[in-house]
């Protein structure tokens, strides 16, 4: 049963990793704006470059 102890410690550590990731994301301002990034990701620049080549 000793393996359970190890597994539990590992699982808490993994969860702790996610907690740290969350705290880091808040600290670096990734939670400040929950709308613009979702829009920004949809802009593609390639389209314009192609247009320029045609011109």
């Amino acid at each position, binding site marked *: 049963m000793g393996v359970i102890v190890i597994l539990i410690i590992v699982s808490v550590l993994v969860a702790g990793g996610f907690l740290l990731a969350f705290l880091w994301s808040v600290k670096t301002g990734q939670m400040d704006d929950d709308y*613009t990034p979702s829009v920004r990701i949809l802009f593609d620049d390639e389209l314009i470059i192609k247009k320029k080549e045609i011109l």
Partner: protein
Amino acid sequence: MVYTLLEENGMCQYYDLTSMPGITAKGLFVSDKFNYLDNKAIQDQLIQFKLADQVHVVFYLPQIHCVSCVWLLEHLHKINTGIIQSTTHFEKKEIKIVFNPSLISLKQVVQLLAFVGYEPVIHLGGNDWLKKKKVNKKQLYKIGIAGFCFSNIMMLSFPEYLSNNALELGSLRHFFIYINLLLSLPVLLYSARDFFISAYTGLRQKWLNIDAPIALAITVTFSRSVYEILSQTGAGYLDSMSGIVFFMLIGRWFQDKSYDSFAFDRDYNSFFPLGVTVLEEGKEVNKPLSALLKGELVFLRADEMIPADAILLTEGALIDYSFVTGENAPIEVAIGQLVYAGGIQKGRSIQVEVVKPVGQSYITELWNSPVLKNEKNIEKSFVHPWSQYFTIVLLIIAFSSGMYWSLYDTSKILPAVTAVLIVACPCSLLLTVTFTYGNVLRWLGNAKFYCKNAAVIEAIDKIDTIVFDKTGTLTNHEDTHLEYHGMVLSEAEMIAVKSVTRESLHPLSKMITQFLMLEVSDLTSFQKIENFIGKGTKALCNEYEILIGSSSFLKSNGIPCHDSLQGALVCLAINGELKGYFAVNHAYRDGMDKMVKCLQDKGYRLHLLSGDHPIEKAHLTHLLGKEIPMFFETSPADKLAYIQKLQNQGHKVMMVGDGLNDAGALKKSNVGIAVTDQTHLFTPASDAILEGREIKELHHLIDYAKKAKLIISYIFILSILYNIIGMYFATSARLSPMVAAILMPISSISIVALSALLSFLFSYKIRARN
């Protein structure tokens, strides 16, 4: 012209993103307007961070409204290579621009923004709301940590619940429990800190707020759990404790997540320009507003605001005071007369000499009045008295169950008493309140009624008197029309009048010309014309001698005029006889009569305060009914005094107004609602912001805000039910950690769901139109 610019830079994709990108470069693009940005002192106020080759600056752009806006603003670097990067923040309507100062100046950046249609709103109180963000971050940390600890404790508690005490692996069981204890420490010491601090400050002021019983419950739960764990008699209630802290923190966050892009606390500084153009020895110099001194010459271009009370030195002043006094039409001012701060020059460029420092002008003086100095006294929420009763009842139950067990089984005194305190903490009340207010705030926001915080909703509930402003509130600033009253004019007379008014650039003349355009299309020549600035025009046209202008102008020319003819109207006399007058009316918004009627039916006492002249009194009486007390030509100070008078009579007053002239009254009133047509550009300090065309729904909005208390009462009854069940287990000293762990999430989740459902159902009236 914007299209050409985009085309040149291969940015036509902008027009493909949405069918109606719908931004327009507002008015004429005046490049001189931003000259003040060349001043170093002003630049230092705006710039956040500076290096030799890059400068960071943040602007507030209220025009941001769609995906295209974001796209265009984030591709500014394609238009001008000097811009290194631009990042928008949609909800705050902000843009952060990084630019290279050797390629493009701050002024040019602003000019570029203005040119593509996003003129930044630059004012002195610019970056106030950056502070708020940090507090919010701490709250997120607390929620994250509480959530982490709660879910892990819950998971590690499962063996304990499900084993039915058959868990014989003693060492493993202790391992689980000690990890739980370890995990609960951050919740107790960090996440739940606000509750303890708030309870402590409340108790020091000898007042039991809702956080006091919550702090008590957390402490009791934790100490009993520690006792059970150390004495090896049980696993404690650490999962329930961390769960409840987690849910309550989420509730608070949900309620406080309000409108980032709105600034509710503006004082006059926000309305004035950051810099002014001063003439020094004939040369134009840009100066920050704060450095403006008495006696300096200020150069004002069209559409610029007068920064301080001053004397007019050049011709062509046409000042729009609608924002300051609520007056309808622009006023022509003659050389040597006083112009007041806050007026906007509508004609060509003028020069004025400052006679009073910025802080002491007619409009800013109001802010120095002692009445406004003290903060609005926020009444304590009804939740606190409720939680007080709750706490008293709780203590009585705990005490009596302790008494009961002392008679039968003394070993069960402590378990029973602590179990009562654990189960029946007013956490559900706090959850109900925070989630319900959060929901109500959001539905009101959906209906374009933006409240500053939850306290405003409670304040609306207590209102019994509503005071309206007229100009800009009941009427629409952008929609004006002219009316002619008096003797019917013959066609020849109309042609003559039109030919005269056509010669003048005064906006009222222009309106009259347009008004007559519908009637006659011909023009005639006149023999003689004389203009008197600020008064009127005298002309000889065919056989008609036309006098057109203010009533005092006609009087001075020997034509008897009635004294009531004052304000935004133009009197007309032909051949020495008063024919009638043209009155400028701002159109009333639709549905005002119905809204007023509904509010009266509900028992509100309504009042009307207007800074305007009483010419429309008859019309207003007809529109709104006779019972409404109406006051005209009220100064900002009068309005403030009137609100105070009503409050002294014991009324709770809601003020609905716009403009700086209402600012004092808005601040003094119990609930100040600022009405705005341009998406929150110029709103004075207020508790709530309402979009102009939604004012006809005011009665529904007030109604809905009042429903919040009802919803809370309903859910509170439900939570009492849960408490009775929990109490049954607690008083019989049979509260197992498992019962607590089941009851806690069920009650929390059902409360949250019910609150969302009820606030949705009650909002049908304000949703109906959208």
